[in-house]
């Protein structure tokens, strides 16, 4: 038997996942932008 009775206690994880995905995407694009800016400064 799977312990499905306790599944309800962990449903909050499904609500946190979209937030984590969005924050991860933001961090990634921010780091890429910073790196691009850094490379641009080096070239100048």
């Amino acid at each position, binding site marked *: 038997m799977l312990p499905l009775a306790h599944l309800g206690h962990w*449903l*909050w994880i*499904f*609500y946190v996942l*979209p*937030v984590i995905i*969005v*924050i991860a995407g*933001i961090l990634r*694009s921010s780091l890429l932008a910073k790196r691009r800016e850094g490379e641009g400064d080096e070239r100048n």
Partner: protein
Amino acid sequence: MSFLSSLPFAHALIARQDLPVPAWLFAWGASIVLIVSFFALAAAWRKPRFEDEGWRPLGAGLSRALLGIPAQVLCGAIGVFLLGVAVYSALRGTEAPDRNFSLTFLYVTCWLGFPVFSALLGNLFKPFNPWRAIGRAFGGGFEAIAGQRAAHLSYPEWLGRWPAAIGLLAVVWLEVIYGGSGGVAVGLQPEAVGVAALVYTGYTLAMMALFGVEEWCERGEIFSVYFGMFSRLGYFGVRDGRLGRRKPLSAATNWATIPGSAAVVIASIASTSFDGGQDGAFKGTIESVSEWVLELGASPLTTVRVTDTVFMLLCFAGVALVYLLGVRGMRTVRGAPSLAKLRNGFAHTLIPIALAYLIAHYFSLFVFQEQAQFTYLLSDPLGTGTADLFGTASAGIDFTVVSANAIWYVQVGALIVGHVLGLTLAHDRALAYWPDYRDASRSQYWMLAVMVAFTCFGLYLLSAGNG
């Protein structure tokens, strides 16, 4: 609201829904809607549009009719009369919260009705504000007798709207925590509401005498500040004594210029979150902490009140923290203004979210309880069974008027629309702060995270409350 939680019309007590997909998938769907809206705004919205209200006055005759002295006197008198009825029924009526006019009138009809209708139609509370009407009548009387206007102290600039923010938490605290049963008491006693209303009347009139009626209403009077905040979203407004139209949402852009404004809107979201979560998402944690406090030797009632108060303050801190993290993130983008400017400059973007939270959490309560308000509570305000003023004292509430699924879709719809509007306001403000629209869009990554967090949190509270 929790005084109703033991009764069949509680907002948390909704018949189980029959949803086509799990509730958490709605959080994913809402997040996708926000992300798509974010990229659509970044691509197509390149100039600020809300900084200018686009004010267009309505006809002078209409302004005179609706804003003239006779209308002001009439509306003020109605406000004072209704406050009097609420206080009288609270002090003299039945102890049963669901049969007494005062609780439903103050905590449902006014507390929930004014925000929604003000957002649609403009600042409806201002003309009906009983304390403003009394204060102005006293001021007019003083002027007639003394031949000069009453002198007032200058209001401390640093204090701003903090009295309203603290007061807002206190209003909710009175109902949700002081009156909250927690299995210990029977709920908020109407008498306590009546006494609180009288104390608040004395306090408000004293503050108006000290600082002036309009000054106090703009900054310190809880209900004027709170309902006035939502009215900034609306299409109609008043400027220089003239009724007019403006772009919806545009008046919100200059609302948060007074210190403490961010605290007001955060207090609104936090208090709604706490009320929504105390019987659902936070229940287990609150119970664990309560047991710990109980072991310290506190009485059961004190334990419930102390624990709930701490959790309400934690909600306030949590909402503030998420907002401040978003602001801090914006600060990292090239060309960003100061942190203080960002903190105040984006506070108004939370107003649609506060409204969305209010609708999402109390929609069913409002729909059900307003049936009581306009039937048996109106006919028998004291709830003693001795009056039937309009012949509707024996009417009841039709709980089938909206289905459980319809309630859920209204809740989800309100949360999504509210957050998309918040995102739009934030994007518009960023365009005003950053000269390059690409930097402005990049700064809004962080507000997108804030909006997604608030949406998912709101949906989690609802699903846990309904479960």
